[in-house]
């Protein structure tokens, strides 16, 4: 699905090569400043690589902006939900459809009815607990906000979903719910990149784990054959 070869942005990451297949969850872990968010932003078309190539479904791709990336089926859940991932004072429904407005058009114009039914479907599908669709998203708990943020990207029909620190600010009980959704999405055939600085999160929820440090991939682990201690030892060393 995604094939990255020798991707570099001097000072941020160097010579990154990785592949993600359909239905696979690739975990990327590493300390803050290891270049993981910059890598994600590059895959999402918001930063331009200095060298290297990105291919999606075998086709080499050059994004001139993240609009191209979204068009090509890449979705990126921002690491900072409060300030970047959602528009806090605006309604739940408007937040959910902002990246897929073309799906709620009727005769070229926004249709409240289509919006309501699309939002209703996603709310039910991801088990988001809300009052009214018109309530501000800031009235929801962290876990429910994150579900809406994920739904926003799923509504764009992505092939690759990049989740950058999806459980920051989500309480422990609700984290399991988020990862249930991730597992279900992978099962349905989505390729997923899961970025987290908490090693157990990627260890228990990814099929493969890459360790990034100082802009390079320094280790690759298979959770079935490596122990959590091994990876934590390497990452937190």
């Amino acid at each position, binding site marked *: 699905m995604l094939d990255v070869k020798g991707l570099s942005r001097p000072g941020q990451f160097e010579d990154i090569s990785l592949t993600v297949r359909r239905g696979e969850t690739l975990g990327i872990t590493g300390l803050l400043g290891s270049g993981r968010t910059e890598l994600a932003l590059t895959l999402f078309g*918001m930063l331009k690589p200095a060298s290297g190539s990105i291919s999606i479904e075998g086709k080499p791709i050059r994004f001139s*902006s*993240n*609009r191209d990336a*979204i068009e090509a089926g890449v979705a*990126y859940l*921002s690491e900072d939900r*409060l*300030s*970047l*991932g*959602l*528009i*806090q*004072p*605006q309604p739940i429904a*408007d937040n959910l459809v*902002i*990246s897929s*407005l*073309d799906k709620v*058009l009727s005769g070229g*114009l*926004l249709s409240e009815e289509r919006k309501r039914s699309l939002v209703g479907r996603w709310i039910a599908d991801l088990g988001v*607990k809300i009052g009214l669709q*018109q309530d501000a998203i*800031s*009235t*929801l*708990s*962290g*876990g*429910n*906000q994150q579900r809406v943020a994920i739904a*926003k990207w799923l509504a764009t029909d992505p092939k690759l979903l990049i989740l950058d620190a999806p459980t920051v*600010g*989500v*309480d422990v*009980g*609700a984290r399991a*719910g988020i990862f249930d959704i991730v597992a279900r999405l992978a099962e349905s055939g989505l390729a997923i990149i899961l970025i987290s600085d908490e090693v157990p999160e990627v260890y228990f929820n990814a099929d493969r784990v890459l360790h990034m440090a100082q802009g390079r991939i320094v280790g690759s682990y298979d959770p079935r054959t490596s122990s959590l201690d091994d990876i934590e030892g390497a990452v937190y060393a």
Partner: protein
Amino acid sequence: MPSFVRTHATEVSLLGVIIAICAVLSVTTANFFSLGNAFDLLNISSVNIIFAVGLLVVLIAGGIDISFAVAASVVQYGTAIALGWIGGGGWVSGLLIAGSIGVLLGAVNAFLIHRFRIISIVATIATFNVYFGLLMFFTKGVSIYNLPDWLTSRVIIYEREMADGSWAEITLPVVVMVVCTLATWFFITRTTTGRQLYAFGDNPEGARRFGINIGAMQFIAFGWLGLMAGIAGLMQAHYAQEVVPNALYGRELDVLAAVVLGGARLGGGKGSVLGCVLGVLLVSITQNGLNLMGVSPFAFKMIVGAIILVAITLSSARIGNLVPVFATRKSTGDRPAERGES
């Protein structure tokens, strides 16, 4: 509809204030409560409402514009000159020329703001001075009185003779105002671009990550205001039957105050066409009432300023509209508790 009241609290309370003021004026003055006066109010307010709905779009997009009223004066001169070149023209060519010059002047603002990352208030104070300076320099302060006949002759859309023999009239600017208002309402509520403007105004970096073209947003917002300012400029020239270089100087602050009064937030992401129209009407009705009550025109601005202050501070939540620092989204205390999801 209780849900309408809940989601349109600003509009409903404005309407309440307007009704209260109208009731008082109807009792205290002889002429306020008449069809003729109501139509006059509409005729007089039309230009400001056209400006206001344009400015609303820029405020929703998180910007501000100080230059639009002076830009409208530039449009008036430019249009008058261009109409001279083409030998008179008519309403269609007049509106096209005025609208185009307006969009161009708005695009200059958007260019400065987007390309050089100048904050909008600074960029538009600069263009305000440049536009006004150029205007005074090239016109030497001279007005234009010999406008084409079609532009200066009143166009009465609807008239009715009153019992006292006077005529109550609705004139062309009112119709143009209604068209501009409906177009803006349609644009910001029913199109994807309108929806994206709200998102962009509230959270520009978030909007960029959602795949919104933020450069386009600036040009669309300021272009729309430019278009409205161009049309309003032509309507003002039509209404005044002359073009005076400093006729609209200072109008930007009246309009800005009225739009903020109508619930638009300086800081972006919030505002409605209905609130904006009611905001302008509230100011106009107050001025009209003071006039009928025989209050000195020198006191108008003072009283209108006081009314705006009172109206805005009456609801403490409204402080967030004026000063984004106090807006709920910026404060740290109101983040929802990370409740457990049972």
